């Protein structure tokens, strides 16, 4: 399929609307939640697809809308939010997910949650230990994808947490215990490799296979932990390859807030990865070209697509379409081939309010259109 230049895509989760959070708890919507539901329904038009759920929430009768139906409405909202912003590839804003670690791990056996770890200040996260061989209870995200496939008007792309990140965010107990002698650096590395590849083969691959069987054609493997230990890039790659081996889909790999050059050229061994979806805008500032790292990819002769992070998800200031277009121009300059570039936010927009997220997505779409007009004109 020939696409227009600079197609656009989502990259991760959206903030949960307040009406969805309260509705899922069967709590009556307060005034701000009702207003939020009304405003966004009017703007992106999703309520008419489940009017009985919307109306029950607005009428203060949350018990008439069961939590699953509210979740479905949240997924419809996510889809329409992204589609009406003008994106070419969408998902549901991860409306059914709370986070990207605990849910997948809870679909597997061999793990034990043993308490909270402080992330910073008074913020904590649950971290499981792998205490036995990894086994998958059943493929996950399947019902979620079925719903998206049934309702999406644009092309769906499913995000799934990668095996390296799931392993890095867990304690390695079982595989480390199998290493003989002192559990020093070499033993830890070997145990981590075994853990990641086992996760990939026993949990990720069956899940991806089930999703592909249901019609999923584009899958984004999220590996935010990849940049945490650059010297383990080979393990990231082996996990990716084991998870995707023999599967037929368009795979992309999302990494963010990392020094990508440190992961290269090892990362290029990810055989079935068709697109690198990376964050760039966060590191782009006057006097510092955040896109210069693309030159390293070009120097290695890599010709895969780039999912170009063109808006920063950690700041409320909304980029102008011209800023996005300028970032695309610079990326083309480094890569040489405009047809390889998709345009997207740096990462998921869940930390931004819905109005800010929407404005940033619209800037992505408009900025891509500006660049498209410039680069397609000489072709005509």
């Amino acid at each position, binding site marked *: 399929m020939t696409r227009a230049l600079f197609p656009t895509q989502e990259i991760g989760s959206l903030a949960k609307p307040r009406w969805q959070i309260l509705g899922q708890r069967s709590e009556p919507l307060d005034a701000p939640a009702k207003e939020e539901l009304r405003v966004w329904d009017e703007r992106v038009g999703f309520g008419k697809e489940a009017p009985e759920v919307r109306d029950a929430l607005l009428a203060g009768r949350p018990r008439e809308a069961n939590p699953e139906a509210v979740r479905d409405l949240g997924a419809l909202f996510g889809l329409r939010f992204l589609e009406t912003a003008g994106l070419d590839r969408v998902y549901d804003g991860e409306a059914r997910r709370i986070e990207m670690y605990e849910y997948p791990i809870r679909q597997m056996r061999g793990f034990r949650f*043993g*308490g909270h770890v402080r992330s*910073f200040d008074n913020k904590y996260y649950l971290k499981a230990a792998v205490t036995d061989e990894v086994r998958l209870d059943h493929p996950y995200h399947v019902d979620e994808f079925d719903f998206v496939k049934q309702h999406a008007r644009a092309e769906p792309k499913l995000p799934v947490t990668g095996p390296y990140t799931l392993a890095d965010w867990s304690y390695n107990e079982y595989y480390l215990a199998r290493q003989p002698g002192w559990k*020093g*650096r070499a033993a830890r590395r070997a145990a981590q490799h075994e853990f990641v590849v086992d996760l990939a083969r026993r949990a990720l691959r069956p899940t991806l296979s089930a999703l592909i069987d249901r019609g999923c054609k584009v899958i984004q493997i999220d590996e935010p932990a990849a940049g945490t230990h650059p010297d383990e890039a080979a393990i990231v790659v082996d996990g990716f390859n084991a998870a995707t081996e023999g599967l037929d889909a368009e795979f992309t790999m999302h990494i963010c807030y990392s020094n990508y050059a440190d992961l290269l050229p090892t990362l290029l061994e990810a055989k079935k990865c068709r697109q690198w979806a990376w964050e760039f805008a966060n590191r782009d500032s006057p006097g510092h070209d955040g896109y210069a790292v693309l030159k390293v990819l070009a120097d290695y002769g890599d010709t895969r697509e780039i999912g170009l992070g063109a808006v920063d998800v950690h700041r409320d200031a909304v980029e102008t379409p011209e800023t996005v277009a300028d970032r695309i121009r610079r990326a083309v300059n480094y890569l040489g081939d405009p047809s390889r570039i998709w345009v997207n936010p740096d990462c998921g927009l869940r930390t931004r309010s819905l109005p800010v997220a929407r404005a940033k997505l619209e800037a992505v779409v408009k900025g891509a259109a500006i660049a498209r007009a410039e680069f397609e004109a000489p072709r005509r």
Partner: protein
Amino acid sequence: MLVRTGLTGPFPRSEALVGATRDLDRGRTTTEAVEELYAKTEEEVVTLEHRLGFDEATAGYLRWPDLFRPFAETWEGFTVGPLTRWLETNTFYRQPILLAPPGRTPGAIAARLPPPLQHSPTTSRVLLPGPYSFAVMLDNRSGETEPALIHRLGRLLGEEVRELRAQGFPLFLFSEPQLVVRPPEGPRAEAVIAGYRAIQGAIDGGTSVVWTYGADARGAFPLLERLPVSAVGVDLAETEVDQIPEGPSGKGLGLGVVDPHTTLEEDPAEVARVVRAAYARRHPSSVFLGPGAPLDLLPWEPATRKLHVLPAVRRVLSEGRP
């Protein structure tokens, strides 16, 4: 072999404290209730440290948001900056921003020490940032060069040590991951030595320990050996024991033998074997055993469980068993 044991960094918060501090942020509990729980949990940590036979107690430093915050909040010249990743972990600290040459506020850090330490200084261990890691992990907008800043921070930390030493604290452990993550060279290395010379000048018969972690320490040993401190520590989850340089050392050797990156409990016999191997390479004046990196990378329960290896290792070593 003279063996000393103790914590080398902050201890995790209990699940009760996790719940209470979360509730505090959400307005569901009071500062007084959380304060009460802090005090109770600190006593639990001290009790644990005594029960495990540690040479000094720390009370876990449960109230410190991160290693630098008390300094960023009380010393002159600083403001508290953005969340920044803590080494190669999934945890974060707020990066201090230095806007002007720093100056200490007398008494401020002493007042931030865990209350049980303030009440019983002579049996307590003070955990402080090392001047090098402090200098390279902050955002320096003061105009001061990095070597000058390292040296200045060493002098200021020396003044803290002098003040706390006068109160009776016997041991000061300086957290220095960056000495092995980004080993200093040239003028920066000389500034590190000068900084520790200032600290050592204030130690007045006490003990100073530099604790490294976060990377393989083998390349840093020439500098570590030159530091004028009582002992230097390395994390044996990062540094293989056969990579520790051979040759007698005039100072003590710290060995991080409890790995906070895994919930797997260490085997006392295996730890004792590695400790003996390290001892045979350096013949240090004393051996300090503890967690290789801060234990707050673990939840409370596994951290507590894993610490039990330390008295077990001590027993194995003292009994001369293989």
